[in-house]
């Protein structure tokens, strides 16, 4: 197992900094997700690690060895491309064997290794097929087997599941994760799908405009976003701005919000983020939650029905809150219903604006 260190990486395209002083340490056997909007630098970082983009400043080390002067084919990496980039003129066997074949491995050893790898991705029996004769999920698995068969030190995945439909993507997520655990390889993957990042990663780095906004375990990054951007990009968030008063934050057009986070001195302007699923909605007179909530009165402006869950837009003062609810009642609250909303102070997360 290997480590990858990115130290102060800078990459500019003209005036635009695709990577702006990025430093991340990828640990041994870690499954690390890079997430961010397009153009945020996540793919550039992946390509820099692979050796397809030269850094303008900073350094990349694999197992503590700087690799800046090594071309991609000497970096001992495995990579799965967005559209798999399977060789169309070669069979499944030849595709997977490619990395061994260019290394001049003997035929017998090659057959054994490729066979074992195809077993691992459950594609035994498909050796003689051409990539075009496979489904999207099967192509994805061939690409994975091809990248892993040389036992590279690092596995790089560029939006590996982006081309698959939703159900297949969920299946492949589980499979990808279990194969990665079995092989135990340090894996760095790029995605713009927040759910995928949360499901797969041991740790996540959120990118914005070439900078790393936040690094941490999925639960940590999701529950404790440190900036408004992180809160809004990974998941949804209701954002509030106001000035600190004793015991809370005074939000214009709403009232006082309490937070469990330590607040700065009174008078300081701060932002608070509240996840839509942390907000409870109840109709006055029916069951009232007893806990000590941030509590407001509002009116349902719109309800979006999505089968398993409901999304409410609720007018509270001059604010429009987004609230997610499990679809327990089977009947969404009609538009115009007067409701109460509330959430625990611990769910008002202090974020940088």
């Amino acid at each position: 197992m290997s480590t990858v260190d990115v130290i102060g990486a800078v990459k500019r395209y003209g005036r635009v900094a695709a990577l702006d002083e990025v430093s991340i340490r990828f640990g041994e056997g870690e499954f690390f997700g890079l997430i961010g909007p397009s153009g945020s630098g996540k793919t550039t970082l992946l390509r820099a690690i692979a050796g397809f983009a030269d850094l303008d400043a900073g350094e990349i080390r694999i197992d503590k060895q700087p690799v800046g002067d090594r071309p991609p084919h000497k970096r001992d990496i495995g990579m799965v491309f967005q559209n798999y980039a399977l060789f169309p003129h070669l069979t499944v066997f030849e595709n997977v064997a490619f990395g061994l074949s260019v290394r001049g491995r003997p035929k017998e050893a090659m057959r054994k290794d490729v066979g074992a790898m195809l077993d691992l991705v459950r594609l035994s029996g498909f050796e003689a097929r051409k990539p075009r004769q496979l489904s999207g999920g099967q192509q994805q698995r061939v690409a994975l087997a091809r990248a892993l068969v040389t036992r590279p030190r690092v596995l790089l995945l560029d939006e590996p599941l982006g081309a698959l439909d939703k159900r297949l993507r969920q299946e492949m997520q589980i499979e990808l994760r279990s194969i990665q655990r079995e092989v135990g390889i340090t894996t760095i993957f790029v995605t713009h799908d927040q759910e995928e990042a949360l499901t797969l990663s041991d740790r996540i780095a959120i990118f914005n405009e070439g900078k790393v906004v936040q690094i941490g375990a999925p639960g940590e990054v999701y529950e404790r976003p440190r900036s408004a951007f992180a809160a809004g990009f990974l998941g949804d968030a209701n954002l509030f701005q106001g000035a600190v008063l004793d015991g809370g934050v005074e939000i214009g057009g709403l009232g006082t919000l309490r937070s469990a986070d330590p607040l700065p001195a009174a008078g300081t302007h701060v932002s608070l983020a509240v996840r839509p699923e942390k907000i409870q909605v109840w109709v006055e007179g029916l069951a009232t939650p007893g806990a000590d909530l941030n509590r407001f009165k509002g009116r349902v402006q719109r309800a979006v029905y999505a089968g398993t869950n409901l999304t409410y837009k609720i007018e509270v003062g001059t604010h429009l809150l987004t609230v997610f609810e499990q679809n327990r009642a089977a009947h969404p609250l009609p538009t115009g219903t007067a409701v109460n909303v509330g959430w625990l102070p611990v769910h008002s997360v202090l974020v940088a604006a």
Partner: protein
Amino acid sequence: MRGFGIWAIRLYLALLLLFLYLPIAVMVLLAFNQSPLYELPIVWDTVWFQSLAHNDRLIRAGLNSVGLALANTAIATALGTMTAIAFARYSFRGKALLELLLFPPITIPWLIIGTSMLIFFFWIGIGRGLHAMLLGHVALSLPYVIMVVGARLKGHGSALEEAAATLGASPWQAFWRVSLPVMAPGVVAASLFAFAVSFDQFVISYFLAPPGVSTLPVEIYAAIRKGFTPEINAISTIIILVSMGLMLLFARLYRFGGER
């Protein structure tokens, strides 16, 4: 109504094929006719093929044509493929302009290109001769080769070569084991174009051929002006058979490396 539509399409197709192949069929048929004046009825004979075997002029012209076309195919395909790769994979100063300048030679009449080449070649001292003809043919074929191979390359992008690199293939290995096989259908099609452009070339060859040297199209043209014998039909028949054979062979080969 449906039935009528299908029959109309079939009729149309039949007419189209008739239009394309009837003149050729008549020419081939008359190559086997004994009469030098194209008299009917056809009297079956191979006399024109026999006399062709003794017509040194025509045979020499034919060999010139084939030799030129093969040399042109090899040179233009190699140069054009390299250029197409450079266009598709690298960015450099003036690339857009260079790419744009590829198209005009395709639309400029060959007569004008031929005249300008003749003037230019004399001006810089290349003069006339097989070497000048080859130079002219290569220059004419290059845009076709670059476009055909380029279209194939653009269809794939550089992801395949990058994939090969991550798997440990050196640029050299990646080229021979991935890039070339994948673009092979394009290269084969381009080489056919290059062959056809040269083999079919009249104007440039006519202008740049020195006295006593000629190619098949030039010789056929000269023969027609003199009032020609069915020997021309005979050699044309041989050419048609060879080129159709080649086409069929390539059509089969085209699948190798392809996606279909």
